[in-house]
């Protein structure tokens, strides 16, 4: 029997809400088993939130994630509003939609850039992050901060989008739309990218349903779920956009879905800016009331769901948080077994849990604990595979 080697990946990556520790067991180049261990950065936010007032908890949940920092406040404020059926002013609904989808663009572009880097297309990395930058600048102009915008509050939003900000916003999303269209064409036409991403890390539809995956991971496996469409909220039922679904379940599909969703997001934002009525942005909520509420939001990575129970005091009695990666990460075991180790970095990244983990990859010989392969080596291996394919395609 061939000797099995364990490859640890992780555990620390400071970027995302869920640092993970992957252990791959390989025979030669082939992955035969995988384990995941999470919780290295568990901060007990649910418990902290029980000690904060309903207003303060918004700021706490915003700090759960650095990349999609608006998705948790979005779900949380909706849960609190659900307790006593608070109705929002229309302008606030539109502003929430704009912020939610601007965030989707910047999160997806970040992913596209890193995926490009993993397969050795550093031009994609440079370009994707170049176009992500104006989106972050717009966040700064609107909210005063590039990340952690603190735009949400129970009953509305904290800041208005000023008339003077609109031209800059329109230009930024025009550029993003053009870039995504261009990249999409390049991705679909490029034989190397196709050979590199197609049929890699397939998640079958029945597995996806059983594992309860959400967001782009589910939609790439042919499950047409999108909270924005299925459970309409904010202004999503007042704008036209497509639900992007593909049925391959591989990395190629996941990449294409994220790019197409960026384009849909630009459409949503443009329509919102056009239709947005003038008026108040805050329902001036004085009291939350007794009861329980559930709030959902389609975060860039999928459905984010919060449950809040109030006993009539200023503090939530229980605040349950479920981030989308909590459902998506366990599914990766099904996608990675049987694949080659050169694809591991890419498949792990395709779920979009976090990227920094791959910087910390190291292959350790189980017997002697000697490091055989470092993180850079893993990325280099992945890039070398692309290079090989390139040669084959060109000559």
């Amino acid at each position, binding site marked *: 029997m061939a000797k099995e080697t364990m490859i640890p990946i992780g555990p620390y990556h400071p970027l995302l809400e869920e640092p993970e520790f992957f252990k791959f067991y390989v025979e030669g180049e082939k992955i035969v088993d995988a384990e995941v*261990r*999470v*919780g290295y950065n*568990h901060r*007990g936010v*649910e*418990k902290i939130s029980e000690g904060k007032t309903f207003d303060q908890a918004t700021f706490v949940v915003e700090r759960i994630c650095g990349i999609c920092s608006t998705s948790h406040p979005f779900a949380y404020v909706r849960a609190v509003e*659900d307790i006593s*059926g608070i109705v929002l002013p229309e302008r606030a609904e539109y502003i929430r939609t704009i912020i939610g989808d601007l965030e989707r663009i910047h999160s997806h572009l970040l992913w596209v850039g890193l995926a490009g880097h993993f397969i050795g297309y550093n031009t994609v990395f440079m370009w994707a992050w170049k176009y992500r930058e104006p989106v972050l600048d717009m966040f700064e102009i609107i909210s005063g901060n590039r990340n952690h915008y603190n735009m949400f509050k129970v009953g509305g939003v904290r800041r208005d989008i000023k008339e003077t900000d609109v031209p800059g916003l329109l230009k930024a999303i025009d550029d993003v739309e053009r870039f995504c269209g261009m990249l999409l064409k390049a991705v679909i036409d490029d034989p190397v990218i196709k050979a590199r991403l197609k049929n890699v890390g397939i998640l079958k539809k029945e597995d996806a*349903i*059983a*594992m*309860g995956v959400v967001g782009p991971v589910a939609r790439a496996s042919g499950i047409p*779920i999108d909270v924005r469409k*299925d*459970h*309409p909220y904010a202004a999503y039922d007042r704008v036209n956009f497509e639900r992007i679904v593909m049925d391959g379940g591989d990395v190629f599909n996941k990449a294409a879905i994220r790019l197409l969703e960026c384009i849909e997001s630009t459409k949503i934002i443009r329509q919102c800016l056009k239709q947005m009525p003038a008026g108040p942005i805050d329902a001036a909520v004085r009291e939350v009331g007794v*009861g*329980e*509420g*559930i709030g*959902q939001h389609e975060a860039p990575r999928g*459905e984010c*769901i919060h*449950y809040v*129970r109030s006993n009539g005091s200023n503090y939530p*009695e*229980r605040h*349950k948080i*479920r981030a989308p990666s*909590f*459902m998506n990460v*366990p599914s990766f075991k099904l996608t990675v077994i049987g694949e080659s180790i050169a694809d591991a970095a890419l498949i792990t990244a395709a779920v979009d849990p976090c990227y920094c983990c791959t910087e910390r990859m190291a292959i350790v010989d189980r017997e002697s604990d000697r490091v055989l392969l470092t993180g850079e080596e893993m990325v280099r291996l992945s890039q070398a595979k692309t290079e090989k394919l390139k040669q084959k395609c060109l000559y």
Partner: protein
Amino acid sequence: MSILEQVKNKFSQLEVNEKNPKRIYLNADNETAKAVVLYLFHDLKARLSTITGLDSRPGVELLYHLAVDSEAKVITVRTLVAKPELLIASVTPEIPAAEWVEREIAEMLGVKFTGHPNLATLLLPDDWPAGVYPLRKQTFESKQELKEIEN
């Protein structure tokens, strides 16, 4: 026939609370709750979003949140797992999506899921003391008890 009506027909003894058209809460005992969750997931194709565990005096309340995407509803099945045994049948053998969710509840609230394939620690550190559940409302009876656990 709407999904809620189908559930009502099959489980006539359920206590149904329609908070609003989008949020439905069903109260059931432990066995019925599992049967309802499995019926919703397998036969009516609802999606298990998550399970909330909530500590209270008589026991730990479990809320199974099932998203019905075709009807824009979230159906929540509520059941009380009685203290001090805190035993309930796991849904993981039938619904793999619940594996991590139940592991989290087991370590945070001390609910014992019978039939769960792997209840190893998921989020807490490996050296976390046994029998301490961070999301319980009152973890320690006295300072003395806290000291004993710390030692």
